[in-house]
């Protein structure tokens, strides 16, 4: 006898035509009045606006041009827009859901998010997590969505103390989660490439 629970439904690949369902404009047609996209900010969202930009590479070093990436993050105060966030500090920003989805471009392979830089978030046992964005990657050839986290290179001290980053033994692997800032057209752009397989393979989490 064992306690009976239902079993999580088996994941299946998002396939090459994931854009039809989740990003129809990229598939080449217009169907919904309201589309979910890669812009997380509204006119009144609080915080420093930033751009996340990157590419996805496969094990041969080739661009993955049909990936879909979702981002989930806290706001500038480090608060998530969800009733399960019971942190005492800061407040929820009604103009920031903290979620978006982007596709790698069919030609350039580049994806982009327009968002705000998140604040630090409470971790377990009184620890503090450095500012980060949770990311989830699906594509043809990926049987189950891959989870990773983006951290910010200009948060060196916070990153040093972050319990998740500290849990990654090899510094070289830790570095795969650090996005590098640069200035482009007056905007702060963080570059975050994702390597599915190979020498600089991104750290993916069993969340």
């Amino acid at each position, binding site marked *: 006898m064992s*306690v*009976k*629970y*239902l*079993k*999580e*439904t*088996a*994941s*299946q*690949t*998002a*396939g*090459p*035509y*994931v854009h*039809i*369902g989740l990003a*129809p404009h990229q*598939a*080449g*047609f217009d*169907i919904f009045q309201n589309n979910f996209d890669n812009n997380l900010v509204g006119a009144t969202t609080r915080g420093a606006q930033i751009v996340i930009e990157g590419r996805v590479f*496969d*094990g041969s070093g080739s661009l993955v041009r049909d990936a879909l990436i*979702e981002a*989930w993050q806290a706001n500038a105060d480090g608060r*998530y*827009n*969800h009733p*399960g*966030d*019971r*942190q005492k500090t800061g407040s929820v920003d009604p103009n920031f859901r903290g979620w978006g989805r982007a596709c790698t471009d*069919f030609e350039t392979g580049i994806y982009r998010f327009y968002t705000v830089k998140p604040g630090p*978030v*409470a*971790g377990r*046992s009184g620890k503090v*997590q450095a500012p980060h964005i*949770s990311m989830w990657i*699906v594509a*043809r*050839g*990926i*049987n*189950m*969505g*891959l*989870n990773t986290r983006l951290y910010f290179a200009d948060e060196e001290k916070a990153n040093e103390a972050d319990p*998740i980053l500290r*849990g990654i033994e090899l510094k070289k692997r830790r570095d795969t989660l650090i996005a590098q800032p640069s200035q482009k057209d007056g905007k702060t752009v963080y570059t975050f490439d994702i390597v*599915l*397989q190979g020498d600089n393979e*991104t*750290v*993916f*989490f*069993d*969340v």
Partner: protein
Amino acid sequence: MNDLVSHAPPAFVKEGTNPYPELFRRDYAAQSPAYTPIYKTSVLRSPRNALLSIDHTVSETTGPVFGHNELGLLDNDLIMNYAKDGEAIGPRIIVHGYVLDENGRGLPNTLVEFWQANAGGRYRHKNDTYLAPIDPNFGGCGRTLTDENGYYYFRTIRPGAYPWRNYVNSWRPAHIHFSLFGNAFAQRLITQMYFEGDPLIKVCPIIKTIPDEEAVNRLIAPLDLNASVPDDTMAYRFDMVLRGRRSTLFENRLEGN
């Protein structure tokens, strides 16, 4: 097939504690590994390092919330939501069921998105070049929110099978893609629904990546004549399960939650 009956006790949430505690660990024995050479595209797109297990924080136990005002009235009707000068061609079907968690509880107000090929097996996508014709009145995607019990439904046409380049003469069984959110980002899941009785199911390399036969069977939707509309539309029943949450019998040390 897909006949989910839960005998598990519901997770217990003690008053005053967070109703969104940590999630059950994922059971990888019933999930496809990343590297599955029978599905050739996975060979170069699968990480070689082990996934790094992390204890849940508020970053994992929360997730995006969506509202009814973000969806259009026809978003759950694929027969009508792209109709131009007529209706979509093909067998009319309803797909319905529950989105549950592993405790057997319905997940309310969760976004369910779906997409599919048309009756001829052709996708409305700039990268699909299969010779079957595009249906001018069929877009092939929709979305809905579950109700307070986790129930969802939509109307569409039954998609056709189509060839793909894995082996020579590989054909995908008719299927509908599903994207699910649940109420935590760690529950995020994409899957595919198949149709009872389709002989292509047992020869499909993508389905064969799943190591557990019962898990495969749960992806196969049975015909549900009781939910059909006589003289109008057949129905298929498809329940889906996302990861459960632990009970909060005693407060743990998960801060920020």
